[in-house]
């Protein structure tokens, strides 16, 4: 880079920083530092992958849903997730990466998705717990992201949050029905809470002190609130909800601190967190294998669609000529 170019780059960066400070949204055609671009691609595509892989654990119960109404509701929910995925991939594409490239990074295991989806859905209550806790945790994070600095991502979040809060209510309603059902149903609901509680807290990522991307991300307002802040918000919100259900959160250290007006909670098992993040959770391999299988088996379909479209385009050209 010549001296002149460097100077220009510096002034652009100053301008960019000023805009961020004034809470202006950065749009696709605006100048942005390369690292800002990369960090957004990373975050948005991870988010998109989470929506797509997240379809699998819930999809596991579509064929076995206990009533026609529940079946339709779950089916629509999982379809919403595909829509969110598409929407987010499009947002990331505005940063100059193709959907196929991102998708393949996910398929080969290079790109991450939310670790929560590497846990199995064992009973119908898990569908309730996912809606209540996992979507609940996601919303806490996503509401803060409606203020993120990259325009297309912020706008995607606004839309996605609306649907997610609907999903969360559906999940909570499943839990409510079970918690107020037969003793067997209540036990099933409690068991689901026991298994999904801690992984839900882990969804917010490592403690602030150990989070590698946090500083720059927050300076550029890609991330708005820190992992620990968001985690606390979630706990404060979920505990009273569990009380209403009459279910017990599986944490002996959980207690309300009237001075801070927050719930204090026990230690998260970070070893488990890293095990799953690094690809060794109970379902990591299965999830990726399923997505790879669908992608590979669908290859001839996608090729056919492209070949057909090309033939049609040629026909139109011939007709026009």
């Amino acid at each position, binding site marked *: 880079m010549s001296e002149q170019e460097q100077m220009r780059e510096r002034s652009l960066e100053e301008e960019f920083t000023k805009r961020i400070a004034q809470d202006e949204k950065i749009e696709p055609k605006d100048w942005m530092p390369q690292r800002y671009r990369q960090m957004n691609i990373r975050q948005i595509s991870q988010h998109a992958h989470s929506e797509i892989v997240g379809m699998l654990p819930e999809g596991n119960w*579509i064929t*076995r849903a*206990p009533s026609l109404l529940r079946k339709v509701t779950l*089916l629509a929910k999982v379809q919403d997730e595909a829509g969110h995925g*598409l929407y987010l991939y499009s947002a990331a594409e505005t940063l100059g990466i193709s959907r196929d490239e991102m998708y393949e990074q996910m398929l080969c295991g290079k790109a991450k998705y939310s670790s929560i989806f590497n846990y199995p859905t064992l009973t119908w209550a898990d569908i309730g717990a996912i809606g209540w806790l996992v979507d609940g945790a996601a919303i806490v994070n996503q509401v803060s992201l409606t203020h993120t600095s990259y325009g297309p991502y912020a706008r995607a979040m606004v839309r996605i949050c609306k649907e997610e809060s609907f999903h969360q209510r559906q999940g909570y309603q499943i839990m409510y029905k079970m918690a107020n*059902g*037969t003793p067997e149903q209540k036990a099933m609901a409690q068991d689901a809470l026991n298994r999904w509680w801690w992984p839900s807290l882990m969804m917010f990522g490592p403690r602030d002190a150990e989070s590698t991307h946090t500083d720059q991300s927050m300076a550029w307002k890609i991330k708005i609130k820190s992992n620990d802040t968001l985690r606390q918000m979630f706990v404060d919100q979920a505990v009273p909800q569990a009380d209403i259900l009459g279910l017990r959160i599986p944490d002996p250290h959980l207690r309300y601190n009237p001075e801070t007006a927050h719930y204090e909670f026990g230690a998260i098992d970070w070893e488990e967190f890293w095990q799953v993040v690094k690809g060794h959770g109970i379902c990591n391999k299965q999830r990726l294998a399923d997505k790879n299988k669908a992608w590979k088996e*669908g290859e001839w379909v996608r090729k056919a*669609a492209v070949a*057909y479209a090309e033939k049609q385009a040629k026909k139109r050209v011939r007709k026009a000529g």
Partner: protein
Amino acid sequence: MRTSQQKKQMPYPQDDGPVGLIYGLADSSLILAQRLSELTGHGPSLEVDMGLTNIALDLFGQVRLYYQYAAELLADGRTEDDLAFLRTEREFRSVLLAEQPNTDFAYTLTRQFLYDHFHFLMLKELQRSKDNTLAGIATKGIKEVAYHKVYTSDWIERLGDGTEESHRRVQKAVLDLWPYTQELFYKTEADKKMIEQGIGVDFERLKAPYYKAVTTVLKQARLKVPEVAYFQKGGKEGVHTEHMGHLLATMQYMQRTYPGMEW
């Protein structure tokens, strides 16, 4: 807790009234939608995944209306869910086509295509039923099914006139599933009685327009229209293929494992 399902039933009751007619109209959609829903999250592309899920959602929605009406007519405490989740294999009046497995995308798509064209013609007739509820369900459903028909016909054309591989696969699916098409026009005792009363649909009359419509699409897609000497039937009399029991075992798992509970 419901007690209705403890009600003892005849082993394989033949309902030749309006409820039998409704089973004949709705069961195929239920089984097809169940098959489609197996694929949610596993489609060849996100767009197709969403497209097939949409069809499944529409079909489940229609099924609920039919079953709610049947439950009303039965008036014995059974609900839409009892009809879906507590009838046995021999009581389902769905066509054999519906329960055929998702062998590959070509099969899934062809199965749906072959059903959609029948479904559309059937609903068109059902709109004229003397039974206002059924006519109403048909009027609501036909808008959705008109779209299903376009969606699957477009895909048949894409696959038939796409690549060599897609052509080969979809041609095989058409050949293998064709023998299940004639059952679509089969009339049970219930169907016959209900036709006499101006409530049911005379499926026989749909046969010629059906084969004309699907043949047109297949030819457009450069696909061979099968000529088969022998057709399969049985589903509409509750005699299914071996696939059906497994489909039901999955679908009815919760209701069978936890009898009488509400979710």
